[in-house]
């Protein structure tokens, strides 16, 4: 990792923190993407504040594509991507958060539950990357 890469990581993180602050300021909502998605899918009353947030994410991606051209995508095969999505959806719903919900918003709130969740998903994620090296069927280069 270069120092430029680290600088961009911290700067990008600060923008994410600012976005989470604006979203929370508006009416107390937590800018955890899995929670926002849950609201958009399952809560009619939340849609006014959740759907535009998700649209904003996609528009940022479109702007990124216009500015940067092609971007790297996951190297996993379709079955791997399908399984991964299922686990991410189920896990974030049961665990009540993802990288942004627990890892950013929860830790910013000094939540003990979020600390435990964050350490847990980093641990199982690291274990998965380790195991995936040895399972050709799951191999993601």
């Amino acid at each position, binding site marked *: 990792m270069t120092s430029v*890469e*680290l600088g*961009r*990581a*911290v700067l*990008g*993180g600060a923008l*994410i*923190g*600012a976005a*989470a*602050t*604006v979203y*929370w300021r*508006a009416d*107390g*909502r937590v800018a*955890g993407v*899995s929670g926002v998605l*849950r609201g958009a899918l399952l809560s009619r009353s939340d849609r*006014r*504040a959740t759907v*535009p947030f*998700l*649209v*904003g994410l996609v528009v*940022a*991606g479109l702007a*990124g594509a216009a500015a*940067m051209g092609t*971007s790297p*995508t*996951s190297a*996993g095969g379709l079955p791997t991507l*399908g*399984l991964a*999505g*299922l686990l991410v*959806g*189920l*896990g*974030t*719903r049961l*665990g009540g958060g993802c990288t*942004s*919900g627990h890892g*950013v918003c*929860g830790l910013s*709130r*000094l*939540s003990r*539950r979020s600390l435990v*969740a964050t350490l*847990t998903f980093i*641990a*199982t*994620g*690291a274990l*998965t*990357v380790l195991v995936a090296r040895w399972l050709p069927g799951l191999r993601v280069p």
Partner: protein
Amino acid sequence: MRTTLTAFGSGLLFGVGLLVSGMTDPHRVRAFLDFAGRWNPSLAGVMAGAIAVHGTALWLERRRLGVSIGAQAPLDARLVIGAAVFGVGWGLAGYCPGPAIVSLGLAPGRVWVFLSTMVVGVLIGDAMGARHAPRGAPSTIAQAPTC
């Protein structure tokens, strides 16, 4: 209308943050999880930057209101199991929900497969009775997130 615009702006800024930080690249995310290989700590830098800004904003709000972080919800098995399951999916693909949704605009490719099954996963989790805690009001800003 204002809610809609603020929410859109927040999502846009959030997505730009993910793009600037490089977290829309699943290889870089997996490199963060690859402790036994060529470890790339970028993701920790992103979290540090985000927590520095958002944590400070929340701390200032607590100070303004004169409240402490208050009682915390207890840990339970569902939290740990859910986080563990999420981590496996995250490690397999290198996508978590935010970057996956940004990728729909950035580099759609096959990410739609991930997104489709992710929605199915959310619905299955909901059918399994996952609770949805009330969203944080100012007096409860220390409560566990509901995301």
